[in-house]
């Protein structure tokens, strides 16, 4: 009995609230990330419309040599990437449910219980989102907008670049969990590890929800 209790305490890290300190930490981290992204969004919005030279996000611009620049934001492409990220959140919750319910009826041996599939799908959708972002950044540079061009370019690339870096970290995190799942299999005891990763992933998703509206859809 004593050894069993010792074993439990060896692998768990509870605070005085009875909550696992890793989960408290991830929520505190997400809270701090809220402030980071809000500062970046604030900067973007304050500088919005204050660029002296183009290209501009929603309006065409003609430079002194007569070259016409189209509005630079590509709403159809970004809408697709937004949909991809939203769907990645759905498969992420399915991955967590598969790990939490491993061995239970309805999950054992079924598609819903295949955590490897859902983790791989989440990572793949995250990588697809990054592909869309790489395409967008490349096309912007080809159309003449870089981080040095104007206030819009500086604030836009900083904001979306920070978000992209977070998505990249999330994809690496998911691939790490997937490799653990392949190597030894994730069990309900590991649910917290997946839960923490899922919270981070959903946070990255909600940040994009805000960015999509504030940067892309509001003129």
């Amino acid at each position, binding site marked *: 009995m004593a050894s069993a209790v010792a074993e439990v305490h060896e692998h768990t890290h509870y605070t005085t609230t009875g909550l696992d300190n890793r989960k408290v930490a991830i929520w505190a981290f997400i809270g701090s990330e809220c402030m980071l992204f809000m500062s970046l969004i604030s900067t973007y919005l304050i500088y919005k419309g204050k660029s002296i030279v183009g290209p501009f996000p929603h309006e065409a611009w003609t430079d002194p040599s007569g070259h016409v620049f189209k509005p630079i934001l590509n709403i159809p492409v970004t809408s697709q990437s937004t949909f991809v990220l939203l769907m990645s959140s759905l498969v992420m*919750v399915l991955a967590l449910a598969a790990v939490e319910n491993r061995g239970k009826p309805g999950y054992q041996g079924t598609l819903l219980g295949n955590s490897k599939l859902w983790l791989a799908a989440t990572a793949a959708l995250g990588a697809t989102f990054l592909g869309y972002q790489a395409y967008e950044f490349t096309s912007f540079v080809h159309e003449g907008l870089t981080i040095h061009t104007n206030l819009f370019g500086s604030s836009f690339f900083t904001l979306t670049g920070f978000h992209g870096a977070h998505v990249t970290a999330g994809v690496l995190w998911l691939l790490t969990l997937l490799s653990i799942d392949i190597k030894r299999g994730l069990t309900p005891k590991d649910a917290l590890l997946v839960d923490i990763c899922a919270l981070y992933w*959903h946070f990255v998703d909600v940040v994009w929800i805000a960015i999509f*509206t504030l940067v892309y859809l509001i003129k």
Partner: protein
Amino acid sequence: MNDHAPHADHAHEHPTWKQYKWVALWLTLITVFEVWIYYTPFKETPYYIPLLLVLSATKFAIVVLFYMHLKYDHKLFKALFTGPLIIAVCTLLALFALFSHRAIPQ
């Protein structure tokens, strides 16, 4: 529920697969609606931006409450998220107020 019991953070109900499916559907529908109104004359009306903000806030809340399980989770987690979020929104509003009254000389 005893808040001091081990695994208090996991002693809560999670939504079912059916609920997750509905959440995903609503998120998709709201996004489609947002993009659709972007291409309509409604975009030029004064109601466009407030409507988009409401829709975006709705999607934000849906993901946080259901996918991040904050609706079912411990109140400490709610405080750890909403506290900084409120500070962040207040900072945004304060910056807007500052910059709308003091134009940057160009």
